[in-house]
C-alpha cells in the first residue's frame, strides 16, 4: 500500500487548549463549594469537579494518542494509552459523516467529527479536528469521492465544483411551530429545580422563599394552579423557541454530488453547528408523523427511512427537517424522493368497518377489564372500595381515540412505493420503496379471522425495520401483496377455482 500517500493524521492541538479551559472551569464550582458552602450538601459540587477533572485528563490522553487516516478502501483510527485500540472500517460501511461544534469549539475553530457505520462498535469519534481538516474529511468521505479524486488526478482539474441543489432552508416561521409542545411545562420546571439544588449549599432555600411568597398573595388554590400552569407553559414555549433557534438556525438541507453518488447534507445550528451527511443510495423512503393535538395546524415531522442505521442512537432518529406544516413538508418530501410519485400524498384504501368496531371494543373492554381486576382485589380486601370504578372514567377519552385510530388506518400502492398509515395520538404515514421489502409477516387473531381482516407486517432493513398496516381486509391484504412483491406473493397465494368458489364468496360479505 502507498503509506506515503495516506499519512496518519492527528487531532488538532487546539483541542488541548479546550481541555485546559474545561479543567479550570470544572474546578470553580468545587472550590466555591468547599470555601463558601457552610451547612448544605456540597458533595455534588465536588463530584462535579472531579468528573470535570477526569474528563479533561481523558481529553489530553485522547489528543496524545489518537491517529487516524483515510485510504481509498478504509478508514482507520488508533487510540488509547493503556488499552490500545486500532479500529478499521471499510468505506462501503460508512453511512453518515456528522460534524458538530459546541460554542467553545467554535471559538477555537474546532469540530467533532463522527463517522457512523450504523453500529457503535465500528463508528469513530474524532474529538476534535480543526475546521479545515473536518471539511477535508467530509469531502474525502462523501459518496463518489474516490472516483472523483481519480478523475481529478487524470484531468488535472483539482477544484471541480460539487453540484448542490437546495431542498429546504431555514425559515423564521418554523420557530412557533416547533416551540409549542404539550411537555413544555416540564421544560419550565427543570431550571428552577436545578437552581434549587445548586443554591442549597449556599444556604439559600428556594422552597422557603416560594412558600413565603405564596402566603402573601390573595388568590385561591385552583386559580393559583391555573395561573401557575399558564405561566409555566409560556416560559416553556419561550424556552423551546430559544433552544430551537440555537439548534436549527441557518438550517440548510441540500443534495450534493452527481448521480449516482449523491448525498443529503444537513447543516444547522447557531452557536454549536452540526453537519450531517446521508448517502442517497441507502434512502428507502420517508415518514410523516402528525401529532393529534396539532392536526388542525397540519404540523408534521418528517423522517428519512434509510438502511444500515441502528433504529436508535446515532443519527438513527432519521429526522430530516424540523416540524413544518403539511404543504411545505410535502414539497420537501417530493424534492427528497425526486421521482414525481409523491407517495405520501396518495389516496389510501380505507380499512374495513370491523377495524372500527375492534378499536371501540378495545376502548370499552380495556377499562372494563381493569375495573374487573381491581374489583377482584377489592372483594378480597387488598384494596379500598373506591378504587374499582376508576378505569371506567377513562372511557370518554378512549372511545374518541379509537375513532381517530380507525380513521388513521390506510394503505396504498403507488409507483415503486408502498404506503401505510396508522396511529391515534401520533399519525404515522410511511412511504417505503418496494425493493426495501425483505419479507412479510401476516397476523390474524381469532376475532380478525371472524371479521375477515388481518394485520400486514412489512419486514425491511431500513428505518424501524418493521412497518405495519393494521387490520386490513383479507382481500385488501392479498391485493397489496400481489402488487408489492408479485414473485413472493406467488409463493403464498393460490388461485381459488373460479367457477365453484366464486359464488360462495359472493354470497358471503364482499367488503370493498
Amino acid at each position, binding site marked *: 500500500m502507498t503509506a506515503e500517500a495516506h499519512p496518519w493524521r492527528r487531532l488538532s492541538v487546539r483541542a488541548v487548549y479546550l481541555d485546559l479551559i474545561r479543567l479550570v472551569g470544572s474546578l470553580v464550582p468545587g472550590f466555591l463549594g468547599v470555601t463558601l458552602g457552610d451547612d448544605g450538601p456540597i458533595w455534588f459540587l465536588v463530584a462535579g469537579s472531579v468528573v470535570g477533572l477526569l474528563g479533561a485528563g481523558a481529553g489530553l490522553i485522547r489528543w496524545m494518542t489518537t491517529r487516524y487516516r483515510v485510504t481509498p478502501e478504509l478508514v482507520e483510527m488508533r487510540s488509547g494509552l493503556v488499552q490500545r485500540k486500532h479500529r478499521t472500517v471499510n468505506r462501503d460501511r460508512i453511512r453518515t459523516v456528522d460534524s458538530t461544534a459546541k460554542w467553545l469549539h467554535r471559538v477555537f475553530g474546532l469540530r467533532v467529527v463522527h463517522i457512523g457505520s450504523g453500529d457503535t462498535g465500528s463508528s469513530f469519534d474524532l474529538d476534535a479536528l480543526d475546521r479545515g481538516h473536518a471539511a477535508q474529511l467530509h469531502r474525502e468521505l462523501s459518496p463518489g469521492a474516490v472516483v472523483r479524486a481519480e478523475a481529478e488526478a487524470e484531468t488535472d482539474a483539482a477544484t471541480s465544483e460539487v453540484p448542490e441543489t437546495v431542498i429546504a432552508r431555514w425559515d423564521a416561521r418554523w420557530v412557533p411551530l416547533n416551540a409549542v409542545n404539550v411537555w413544555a411545562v416540564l421544560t419550565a420546571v427543570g431550571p428552577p429545580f436545578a437552581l434549587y439544588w445548586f443554591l442549597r449549599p449556599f444556604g439559600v432555600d428556594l422552597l422557603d422563599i416560594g412558600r413565603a411568597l405564596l402566603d402573601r398573595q390573595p388568590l385561591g388554590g385552583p386559580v393559583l394552579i391555573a395561573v401557575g400552569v399558564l405561566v409555566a407553559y409560556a416560559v416553556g414555549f419561550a424556552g423551546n423557541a430559544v433552544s430551537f433557534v440555537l439548534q436549527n438556525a441557518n438550517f440548510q438541507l441540500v443534495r450534493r454530488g452527481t448521480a449516482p453518488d449523491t448525498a443529503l447534507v444537513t447543516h444547522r445550528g447557531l452557536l454549536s453547528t452540526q453537519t450531517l451527511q446521508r448517502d442517497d443510495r441507502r434512502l428507502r423512503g420517508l415518514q410523516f408523523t402528525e401529532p393529534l393535538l396539532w392536526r388542525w395546524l397540519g404540523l408534521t415531522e418528517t423522517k428519512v427511512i434509510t438502511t444500515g442505521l441502528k433504529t436508535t442512537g446515532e443519527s438513527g432518529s432519521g429526522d430530516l427537517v424540523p416540524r413544518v406544516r403539511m404543504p411545505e413538508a410535502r414539497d420537501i418530501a417530493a424534492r427528497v424522493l425526486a421521482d414525481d410519485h409523491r407517495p405520501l400524498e396518495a389516496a389510501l384504501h380505507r380499512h374495513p368497518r370491523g377495524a372500527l368496531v375492534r378499536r371501540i371494543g378495545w376502548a370499552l373492554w380495556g377499562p372494563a377489564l381493569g375495573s374487573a381486576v381491581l374489583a377482584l382485589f377489592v372483594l378480597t380486601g387488598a384494596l379500598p372500595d373506591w378504587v374499582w370504578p376508576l378505569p371506567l372514567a377513562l372511557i370518554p377519552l378512549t372511545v374518541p381515540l379509537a375513532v381517530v385510530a380507525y380513521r388513521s388506518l390506510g394503505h396504498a400502492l403507488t409507483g415503486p412505493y408502498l404506503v401505510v398509515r396508522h396511529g391515534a395520538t401520533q399519525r404515522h404515514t410511511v412511504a417505503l420503496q418496494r425493493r426495501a421489502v425483505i419479507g412479510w409477516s401476516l*397476523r390474524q387473531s381469532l376475532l380478525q379471522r371472524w371479521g375477515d381482516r388481518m394485520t400486514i407486517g412489512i*419486514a*425491511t432493513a431500513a428505518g424501524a425495520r418493521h412497518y405495519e398496516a393494521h387490520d386490513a381486509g383479507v382481500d385488501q391484504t*392479498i391485493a397489496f401483496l400481489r402488487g408489492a412483491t408479485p414473485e413472493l406473493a406467488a409463493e403464498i397465494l393460490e388461485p381459488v377455482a373460479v367457477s365453484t368458489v*366464486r359464488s360462495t364468496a359472493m354470497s358471503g360479505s364482499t367488503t370493498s
Partner: protein
Amino acid sequence: MDPESAAEETEWRIRPPRHRVDRRFIVWQTAVAVLWAAVLLGVVGAVYWFAEVTRPWLGPVLIILSVLSTVEIAVAPTARYLVHRWQATDDAVYALEGWFTRRWQIVPISRIQSIDTEIGPLQGLLGLATIRVTTASSEGKISIEGLDAAVARATVDRLREVTAATAGDAT
C-alpha cells in the same frame, strides 16, 4: 356477472405452507408447558403459603395462573401442532404458526442473513430441532420449531447452499 371480468378477477387466497412439523412437537411442548407451570405456580404458591400478608391479593392471581397453566398444558400443544406448518423452497422460506393468533411469515432466500439450527436439551431427547432464519429486519425472523432433527439438518444444508449462491448484501 359477465364471464370475462370474472376470469380477470381471479380470486386468490392464502395457501398454508406444505409440511406439518413433527408429531413429537406435541410431547415436547407439553413437557415445556409442565415445567413452566411447575416453576411459576411453585414460586407463587410458596409465597402464598409462607407470607400470609400477601394472601388477599395473591389468591386471585393464583387462581388465574392455574387456569391458564391447565389450558397451556392440556390444549395448547395439540392446537398449535394442528396449525403449525412450514416450507422451504429455493425461492423462499414460509411458515405458519400460532393458535388464537395466527402468523404467516415469508422471507425470500435472497434476503436471508443467517440460518441456525437449535437443539435444546428436551428437543435433543426427543430427536427434534428448531430452525431459525434471520434477516436484517427484526420482524423478518422465522423460527420453525419441532422439526425432526434429520429433516432440519437436510433443510439447513440445502438453504445454506442456495443462499451461498445468491448475491447481494441482503438488505
